[in-house]
């Protein structure tokens, strides 16, 4: 067991964890952050995407011990004072989700994309989301949602830095 201390969605947490424990398992099983989900075993689907120190990571591909001392933001930490993050709002506005299972990862990756490139072209959006799979939307409205968020100047609001 290894002691780790980190900040998750603004709250400091500290736990003894097995070295093999994945960050996503730590978030879900130890912290109850079940908004972040697991969709595959091979880091292909991106459903578990969170921000670690301001950058998107697939939390199934990070050990909990690697996040020691870091700052993690999940989809549950985006809305501030009951106000949705503009990218969350854009996904609803543009119907960028159906079953919603890929949505937490899709939103976290979209925020990261817009942080790096506030005015992406359609191709840049599509390539920027290539690591996140969605089976419902055909991506059409997800791309619209990111465009919508970009045109409403949302890249930094609420996102971790």
């Amino acid at each position, binding site marked *: 067991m290894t002691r780790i201390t980190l900040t998750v969605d603004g709250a400091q947490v500290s736990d003894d964890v097995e070295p093999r424990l994945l960050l996503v398992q730590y978030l879900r099983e130890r912290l109850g952050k079940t908004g972040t989900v697991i969709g595959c075993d091979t880091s292909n689907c991106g459903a578990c995407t969170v921000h670690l120190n301001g950058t998107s990571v697939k939390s199934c591909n990070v050990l909990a011990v690697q996040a020691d001392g870091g700052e993690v933001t999940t989809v549950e930490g985006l*809305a501030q004072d009951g106000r949705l993050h503009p990218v969350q709002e854009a996904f609803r506005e543009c119907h960028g989700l159906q079953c919603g299972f890929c949505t937490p990862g899709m939103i976290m990756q979209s925020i990261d994309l817009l942080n790096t490139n506030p005015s992406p072209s359609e191709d840049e959006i599509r390539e920027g989301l290539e690591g996140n799979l969605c089976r419902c939307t055909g991506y059409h409205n997800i791309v619209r949602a990111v465009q919508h968020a970009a045109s409403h100047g949302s890249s930094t609001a609420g996102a971790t830095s």
Partner: protein
Amino acid sequence: MTATEVENEIGRDRRRKEDQRLITGRTRWTDNIVLPGMLHLAMVRSPFAHANITSIDTSAAKAAPNVVTVLTGSDFGEELGVCINAWPITPDQVTPGHSPMPSDRVAFAGEIVAVVVARSAAEARDAAELVDVEYDELPAALDLKKAAADETIAHPDLGTNKSAYWVFDSAEAGTGGSADEAIAKARTDGIVIEREYRQQRLIPAFMEPRSVVVDPTGEQYVMYSATQIPHIVRFALAATTGVPESKIRVIAPDVGGGFGGKLQVTPEEWIAWAVGRRLGKPVKYTETRSESLLSGHHGRDQWQKLTLSAEKDGTVTGFKVELLADLGAYVAIVGGGVPVLGAFMFNAIYKFPAYHFAVQTVLTNKTWTDAYRGAGRPEATYAIERIMDELAVEVGVDPLEIREKNWIKHEEFPFTTVCGLEYDTGNYEAATAKAKEMFGYDALRAEQQQRRDSGDPVQLGIGISTFTEMCGLAPSRVLGTLDYGAGGWEHANVRMTPLGKVEVVTGASAHGQGHETAFSQIVADRLGVPFEDVEVLHGDTQVAPRGLDTYGSRSLVVGGEAVVRAADKVIEKAKPIAAHLLEASIDDIDFAAGRFSVRGTDQGLGIAEIATAVFAAHNLPDGVEPTLDSDAAYDPVNFSFPHGTHLCAMEVDTETGALTMRKYVCVDDIGTIINPLIVAGQVHGGLVQGIAQALWEEAVYDDSGTLVSGSFVDYLLPTAADTITFDIDHTTSPSTTNSLGTKGVGEAGTIASTPAVVNAVVDAVRHFGVNDIQMPCTPERVWRAIRTGGKGGATTEAAMPHFEAEGEGA
């Protein structure tokens, strides 16, 4: 509340009610559920496609840390139940018994042979590695055609792989002439087109892996499951495990997609049920993605032998369809019914005078197959829309022209087809005209010609699919004649709360479709209450005690109609109460926009006021029950028949085989649209699933029966970077089979798009002598087809190694 100024909700692009919890992570996926004392399961699965189990040694696993027990099939008796087939398509169907956990023989790689129960999921999985199973390997039936010839038997005790042979013949049914005669005649003085198409094996690949939690504490056993069909699961649990239905509650919480893949009663659910009951403790099992791809049912997997006969001018005179359909190792819940669902759709939108359909369902030692988005209808649409292109080539006309020559004209509706189905409404001319205009059809045809003339290495192809489908599963009487094991009705309950809110209970069970939003819109209009005041409840057999769940584009067409009828009953119940409170005759009471008014006066009461008065019950007319709650069960009288024209432009690099989708236009007639935003989403997602069959996806087995596309590394789901923006629009001819005029949209995109894409690819390279490319049309296959004029070859090899062998690469 004032409800008099509610604007029309139906047709509005309402943002979804579901989204708030989904975009903030306030979700209840089955795997999120944690109960006191809950234990975790891990499955031990067979690595062999076909083998006798000679011994299972669980001692090392049982001794592992925090393992509670390890159980095998022989540890259970009848309480383990069986996985059922609800649709024996013929009376003499050969159906192997399907134990959730067989103790003697495994019939596909991935079948469960033991279950480990531990305090954590990780410990359960660690211990599963320690279960020592000895197998005696048996020859496996893997290739569909060889299996159909009984070369190797998948279940030796059955003596054959042939499960059922199901035939529809229009001459025998009295709905048309003899296809054989038409074909014989055309061989002398007409055109006969013969083709064989392959429907490759696909995997539904919903994003949420399946998960099940069983809670045996309390009077009712509760099962939470990531399923499309909580009501059917409850029925099947009761029917096969000896627990009365009244003791079973099945809950489908938030469910992350299904596409038919969660329309199943699974070994994993049944094992969790048995273990939970055995131990008296809550248990959870969540599959890994690899387990999902390996053991969740697959879809399609057919060989289609087609013979089309026509006059020399292209008028079709007959169509004969002979299918081989791979069931996999077991006959799943719908199983052989999937090709039968397609049987009535091969004639599509056309006026064929003669039709013959036959399917042989075949058992193999592969993962079982069942419904996957479209279920039978994509296969039918693919076959007919591909072969109509071939006919156009033979006649020497544009493929749209050959379709128009044969399709049902809009003034001919209602039209009874050669299968005996009555298409109520449709307008193929209107949808096609609109699609052509949006697509810029003539300009693209001109560009195609120019590229061909100039020998451009990048050729352009145009693909057409003028599809129809049957939705709204299903009239119970029809299901009865087809020997399906249940009905096709749907149930709804509408009730008014004391403070005037509306609760709508539906037996449909959404998993991404947006029922909470769409049904709220319907009820808001019907009862004249604000959209926000309607709450839709579903997916729990104790909340919604009657229902037949969600599949087959049925929720709106059948479930929505039940909601309408229940809402209308609320109004009828409220009327005498309104009359009483308004001191008027019931004959003078009008209801509009949520208000009961006395005709010719300004007297009136809102429906919420009536609800409050009913709750108090201080002043009701004599003999009137103090409730407005109303139930309705709706059994459709007919299917509905959405249709549309899809046009696809593909660029093919003839030097490399690389494909680029240039443009995709579709104009669908899905009847009345409740919410255009939700409809667009269904179409987009459907399109990509159909396009993915055409271009990318295939479940591939190696020659020992191992699924080599067993992860998302190998099973190629499209990404945002693989897909394009679509141009979609609609024409509307409302269905006459339900009061809203809806037709269903859940499967349309998937059904229509596959042949549109393949037609486009073939059209781009036809001048190289290519008339078919086997799906998925990979660049390699396209490249080979161009060079050899063949179909580009089958996928026979095992997956490529992910890492280069030592010393070979950099």
